[in-house]
């Protein structure tokens, strides 16, 4: 358990660094960190599912300028962690319930994380003001030290947010499980209804707004149908 906590907090810290502060190799993308967290906790499918949904959800948001984005990596890792705790808790919790709970937790934590990012930037602003003041008084500053400080703050923000969020949400989820007597239900009806709605609503939206996207959509449908017929 301690090993799992350490690994996930480490992953959250590293992915938080990748978002803005360092590298930007995109290991902070929900699909990547969700998959990673899924493998770390032993539930890869839950990790991939949560990662996929969040990847699609936030693929349009751009980390440009001062705009604070949802803290996607910390949210995703925390969400996968929560789903894994629920799946492995021995309670009568369905896979769908666990994954959905993880997904919702991920979104909530990402929104809270957005404000911790703002706080981190304000802290960097204060650091910058102190450096300017030192220069004004004729003193020197070692940039390596300031850089190490900002990287440490960024890492700790991600790791601690993940730890605290999962602790709090686990307690809430257990209470919800106890109160709701969660059991596996037939999910097919829900899936059919919402798919019907999706098809009914989205295709007219396509036709009206999408212009060149309509042929692309038709191409996708055609390809999938051909493949389906080929493989039966």
């Amino acid at each position, binding site marked *: 358990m301690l090993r799992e906590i350490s690994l996930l907090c480490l992953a959250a810290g590293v992915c938080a660094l990748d978002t803005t502060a360092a590298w930007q190799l995109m290991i902070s993308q929900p699909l990547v960190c969700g998959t990673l967290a899924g493998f770390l906790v032993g539930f890869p499918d839950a990790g991939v599912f949560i990662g996929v949904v969040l990847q699609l959800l936030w693929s*349009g948001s751009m980390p440009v300028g001062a705009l604070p984005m949802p803290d996607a990596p910390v949210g995703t890792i925390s969400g996968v962690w929560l789903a894994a705790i629920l799946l492995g808790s021995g309670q009568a919790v369905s896979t*769908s319930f666990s994954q*959905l709970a993880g997904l919702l937790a991920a979104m909530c934590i990402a929104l809270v994380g957005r404000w911790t990012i703002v706080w981190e930037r304000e802290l960097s602003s204060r650091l910058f003001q102190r450096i300017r003041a030192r220069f004004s008084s004729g003193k*020197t500053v070692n940039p390596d030290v300031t850089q190490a400080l900002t990287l440490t703050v960024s890492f700790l923000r991600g790791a601690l947010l993940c730890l605290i969020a999962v602790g709090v949400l686990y307690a809430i989820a257990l209470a919800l499980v106890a109160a709701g007597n969660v059991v596996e239900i037939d999910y097919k009806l829900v899936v059919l209804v919402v798919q019907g709605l999706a*098809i009914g609503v989205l295709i007219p939206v396509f036709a009206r707004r999408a212009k060149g996207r309509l042929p692309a959509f038709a191409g996708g449908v055609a390809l999938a149908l051909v493949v389906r017929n080929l493989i039966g």
Partner: protein
Amino acid sequence: MGQEMEEKSMGKAGLLTLVIRSFYLQAGWNYESLQALGFAYIMSSAGRRIASGGEAARKFFERHLALFNTNPVLASYIIGATAKLEEEHARGKTSSAEIETLKSALAVPLASVGDRFFWASLRPIAGLLGVLTAGVVGGVGALVLLATYNTFHLYYRIKGVFRGYALGTGVVSEVARLRIPSFSHHVGWIGAFALGVLLVAAVHGWQLVWRREAVFVLPCVALASGLLPESLRKRITEIALVVGVVGLLLTAGGLLG
């Protein structure tokens, strides 16, 4: 004199250090000076090689603490060119004003080109490719995303520093000729194509990794491909939370009674 000139050169090791440090440009991102803390950190490695100590080193660092903001990947061109100009400044061939002018002249166009390509085009496309792959082979999707994005990312990071250093002020015309394609308007097409594939897959119950959860994946693909009005997309997380809560309640059999 010759030995002194050699001492005040970056060399390959120095340029490689700049490449490595360029990955930390945004570490001290703040509202006062944006990327200036990171830029000063990157250039300090050049400063140790080029600038003589004391007052020159202090002025060197202070010069790079001025407000700075650009695309973090294409910033590598500015880093390389600035290192070259600092080298010439140490030899007395360039003024500090020229260095500052070069930085500010390049920051805006590179931000525009870089943000459109890396953030608005490459990242969503890499994400969609990753998602489609993940639908069939699970965890491999993450690797596809990483490989797609980083092929371009690392190429421009490394090339930028070396080209910038080789060209010095000439990097301005190089940047003007830079033909980095923008696929931002193709992102919607790729999203639409993915939606078509997934729709058929979901309706026919293919053995996708998230077959049952396609109910949530499909609307997300539609949103990602920019099909819904901008006003709805701004509140996407909040809308998704509401949809998710409804789904959670429906999933919890006990709550359905």
